[in-house]
């Protein structure tokens, strides 16, 4: 009834984007979360606020500034120039950058909370057992914060899958490269192809529901484990 070729590329691309973004987010977000949880700098809440900005800014604002930043007048254009390009907009890499910025608070916050939840005690104990700071981080802090990492990964992934406004503004709607699920649904709705829109939208609905259930389960386990 529906040609799979139309529906599946956006799905595949979306999963690819979300997976890549999640990995990048965990790599970048973990040191930020660690610093926010441990630092006693007075201006750290300023940094926390910057990280949290995407929570309150409309995607159009983020998308607009990303478009400028990725373009030839911004750092993105300079990076693209190294590879013979002109702009990072309209590329998969550009979407990853946008998604990372947009989903950052969803990753940093749970990890930071998890790092703060166990306090100084286990790290001090590890120090008296001869563990170096690097050692303590990997063998104590990360395992203890595992539920936080799980929540962060799920939220980061899900938020990227559900992202729309930013992708719309920096993606250029290129099939197989930047035409992700949410944009595809939007196109189907706009062009009155409601059958296709329904298939994707119901899929998103089910997926989102499962994500929320997963996060709540992890959260409960975190609370039980923490007490």
């Amino acid at each position, binding site marked *: 009834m529906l040609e799979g070729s139309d529906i599946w590329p956006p799905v595949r691309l979306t999963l690819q984007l979300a997976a890549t973004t999640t990995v990048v987010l965990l790599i970048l977000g973990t040191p930020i979360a660690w610093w926010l949880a441990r630092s006693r700098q007075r201006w750290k809440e300023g940094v926390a606020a910057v990280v949290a900005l995407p929570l309150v800014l409309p995607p159009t604002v983020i998308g607009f500034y990303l478009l400028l930043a990725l373009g030839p007048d911004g750092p993105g254009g300079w990076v693209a120039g190294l590879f013979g390009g002109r702009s990072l907009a309209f590329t998969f890499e550009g979407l990853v950058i946008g998604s990372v910025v947009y989903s950052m608070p969803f990753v940093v916050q749970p990890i930071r909370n998890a790092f703060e939840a166990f306090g100084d*005690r*286990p790290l*001090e*104990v*590890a*120090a*008296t*057992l*001869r*563990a*170096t*700071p690097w*050692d*303590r981080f990997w*063998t*104590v802090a990360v*395992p*203890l914060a*595992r539920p936080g990492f799980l929540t962060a990964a799920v939220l980061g992934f899900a938020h990227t899958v559900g992202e729309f406004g930013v992708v719309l503004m920096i993606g250029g709607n290129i099939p197989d490269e930047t035409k992700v699920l949410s944009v595809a649904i939007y196109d189907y709705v706009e062009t009155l192809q409601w059958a296709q829109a329904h298939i994707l939208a119901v899929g998103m609905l089910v997926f989102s529901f499962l994500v929320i259930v997963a996060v709540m389960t992890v959260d409960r386990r975190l609370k039980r*484990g923490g007490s």
Partner: protein
Amino acid sequence: MSGDDAMGDVAFRGTLGAFTLDVAFTFPMRGITALFGPSGCGKTTILRCMAGLQNLPGCLAIGRDIWQDSDRRTFLKPHRRPVGYVLQEASLFPHLSVRGNLRFGLRRSGKRESDHALRFDDVVALLGIGPLLGRGTATLSGGERQRVAIGRALLSQPQLLLMDEPLAALDSMTKDEIIPYLETLQKTLHMPMVYVSHDIAEVARLADRIVVLSNGRKIADGPVTTVWEKLDLQSAIDRAEAGVILAVRVVRHDTAFRLTYLDHHGQELAIPMVDRAPGSTLRIRILARDVSLAIERPSGISIRNVLAGIIRDIIEEPETAHAEVLIDLGGAVVRSSVTRASVAELNLAPGHAVFAMVKSIAFDKLSLNLGLAGPD
């Protein structure tokens, strides 16, 4: 080994918020040194400074090793200090099994396993935690947790064990379960310990030396019996716990009435029978509240222990009904807690002869130091 090699030298002076710490003391690298005082006196801070978890200006030398010298900007990071640290809460790593916790410090001791003074199997046997090895930490009882924490600290091959109220979170039955392990540790491993506590009974039973702290300052230090006899501990401890420790010698047992007779500088004391050979020494604790006074040798009363002495000092507490009387027994001092009214009626004053009456029952189990002979 020279005397200095076998000493720890501690001096810290600094401010943490509204709290000021200013202490200096030395302790031998053998036996148990207690840091004693009420909560907020700074004893935990000293321990944290010794472990390197806190950096207050000062000096810290352990034997020949300088761990901290603020004047020379020397400060050994905590993971470079060979200490074992045991906290009030066991603080086991919840993501590791008992075995994983024990091996955490062992693997990082920086020595080959063959060079370990404390071997895994020995420590496990000593603390009786063999059956727990495969368990998760969440299923352990309070006492088990604390034993594992002690084992974990020992296996990191420390030169010095720092204990921060390791028994304070445990109920008295569990305390009784742990204390023998600490005593065994002391006897078999000769591991020097600095032991923070606010519990007189614990200190009396375990410690050889004591550093008494109040408000971030040292009030007294020295061998535990000497300090106890001589010091006015009023500021360090509350009235109910005030008392003295006497070094006594076992004279004989009365098996018919199940009593043990003790000698203290020529005066006789009787306590419920203890399992110690005649001639051996032990320490007993006499609480001030268990000592009554009479100006003539009393007769026709149930109290068995009547000690003759001279009043050395009377400390009256103006806003209360209480007074504290120090009685010189000819060498040692006992304290008696009486009412100010009694002081007036009996016309008590320094220099007067009195009789101190001690109820036998006051020599309870915890106040007996069964494990260790007195240092003198």
